[in-house]
């Protein structure tokens, strides 16, 4: 659907709501991450959920991703399809890489084993349990 100038003559409610929501989500995520006793898994699920929500907010409220010229609605389908495919590729890249580079190596990647005398590393194994 095309946005028209007409809609833009009033007060920018949409922007304001978007802004307030993004602040709230940010603070909430911070609170969940640092000041609750949830398990790490839950914290991660919640804060990433919020991040995705916020990204969607920006796309819809500020960037008008669904908007296009009046002449064709192919354009908005392309814009949205493009972002969705980008999200797919991004997920494949991030989750795929982490999976491929840590799975299977779990049993032999020395980064996870408790420190030995001559091991230079100073991190402990809890830090990257997913490894």
């Amino acid at each position, binding site marked *: 659907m095309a946005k028209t100038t007409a809609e833009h003559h009033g007060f920018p409610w949409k922007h304001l709501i978007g802004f307030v929501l993004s602040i709230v989500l940010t603070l909430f995520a911070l609170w969940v991450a640092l000041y609750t006793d949830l398990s790490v898994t839950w914290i991660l699920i919640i804060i990433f959920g919020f991040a995705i929500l916020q990204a969607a907010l920006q796309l819809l409220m500020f960037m008008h991703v669904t908007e296009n010229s009046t002449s064709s609605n192919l354009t908005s389908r392309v814009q949205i399809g493009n972002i969705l*495919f980008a999200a797919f590729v991004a997920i494949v890249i991030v989750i795929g890489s982490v999976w491929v580079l840590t*799975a299977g190596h779990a049993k032999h990647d020395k980064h996870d084993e408790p420190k030995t005398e001559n091991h230079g590393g100073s991190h402990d194994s809890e830090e990257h349990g997913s490894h």
Partner: protein
Amino acid sequence: MKWDEFFVTGDPLIYGADVSILLTMVGILFYLTKYNKWKWLWDEWLTTVDHKKLGIMYIVSAVLMLFRGGVDALLMRTQLAVPDAKFLDSQHYNEIFTTHGTIMIIFMAMPFLIGLINVVVPLQIGARDVAYPYLNAVSFWTFFIGAMLFNISFVIGGSPAAGWTSYMPLASNELSPGPGQNYYLLGLQIAGIGTLLTGINFLVTILKMRAPGMTLFRMPMFTWSSLVTMVIIIFAFPILTVALALMTFDRLFGSHFFTLQGEGMDMLWANLFWLWGHPEVYIVILPAFGMFSEIISTFSRKTLFGYKAMIWSMLLIAGYSFLVWVHHFFTMGSGAAVNSVFSITTMAIGIPTGVKIFNWLFTMYRGKIQFTTPMLWSIGFIVNFVIGGVTGVMLAMAAADYQYHNTYFLVSHFHYVLIAGTVFACFAGLIYWYPKMFGYKLNERIGKWVFWIFTIGFNVCFMPQYFLGLDGMPRRVYTYSEESGWGPLNMVSTIGGFMMGIAFLVLVYNMYYSFRYAKRETTGDAWDGRTLEWSTPSAMPPFYNFAKIPEVTGLDHFWRQKQAGKVEKLTAKDIKPIHMPSNSGVPFIMASFFFVAGFGMVFDWMWMAIIGLIGVFGTLFYRSFEYDDGYYVSVEEVIETEKISK
């Protein structure tokens, strides 16, 4: 930096290259000056934004690169012809296969295809140019400069020698010191920018610049394949950009992404390289598929079989192309679950590819097949490509790949798909659209000779390599012992390689011969074609392509019009002033600054890199302030060009 590290010395081959480069340059300068061609060169070529001219420049560069990569190949084959050969030493051999692989894929296959896409796609969709003609020139010049930067490594500083895959930590400062590896990083980086811009440009062009009536499902298959390719480019090339940048940081700025020190992770490079690298091989095969679709349909005189299935299979391949990269390192120990998943996704690509193969076969079924040269290449493609394809599926079976990996079985697989797929398509497409670009056909009789010599040579060269692989011959070894027993098959392979070289020379001769003697085309429809590019009245379309934008009513619109005897004749009153973009020298200048920046980085001369980058941003900003709305071609000029009698 000492001089002996700057100029590569001590080898007759390199002195030979020095001299021939110098002579060529002097020759070109002399010619341009003597015949007063400088202005012509600048106005007609260096500043052009015409997609057809840019396309031709891409193709010319690609043919030159095919020669360069081919010479590399023949040098390798010479060294490998007999056991314990002393023709090349190890370092030299390593440099040669590295540049061979890189040049063939990045600087030959891609630009060849992008060149053909440039020439053909706007014509096929009935457009006057691409969406961003200026950007198109930027794409070409950054590609060209990237290629040049990569190529001078041969005489200045030394070539990269860590393989086209450049695995870390081998490619790190400690194990590959010197500028060689930097050339790889910067050359690819700069050319990669151009490729990404091409991706965006043509995606928008195809989506938004189509002639009225040409819905998505009326687009010719080559246009479709280009569309899908562009999508892959847009999402794959940024990965390469990052990977190259990270390695550049490791080499120049002391970071530890992939290094041995600082707990860098070498596997991460392999992972990122193939996250791009696998989609890349589909980038170079899908346009090839598109061309074969056009050619097979044209010369079977028949509609493409299963048009929709062709499109869906291509979309599936594009989606899958991002889900299989791990098959390049099954042997890295990521465990049974990872290997199983990626085995299956990889094999699954065979399904949509098979659909395409059978659809091509059934396009010929009940057709009226004409054995023109482009058609011969296309049939040759089907027959040879399946060999590469099914051996690809064999490689995809991870447990078996533990044995094939890093052997000549793999080398043979990818030459079967890259040559019988991509290179055959480049030849077929070049010959098919040659009259569009130059106004005459290449000689068919000589062309058929090229086909047979090349195809036989190709099989003689690479079929034995499957067996060498099964006999345990690893890739990238510069020599082997007598006892290994690999001598005879290698000799056969080398003979095949030289046959391909001969075929290439005959092809070049054919260009010369046809330039001299071929009959000039009088219409725009040299092959009785089906799609809009054949509908222009003159053999070579004028710079604005179409005096009047065609209106499309269905698939193969032009062919159907011809069948119905309803080809419209252009009349003077159809003609309106035509808006066209202006030429610009900025892309060329910007690319030159890229060269300066790249060269500076290669030698770690940061002052030079900074000057270059300032230049790049300067041209960018300059362009931002330039409001050039192009110009209008007057009705009179169009009428004159089209030779319409009033």
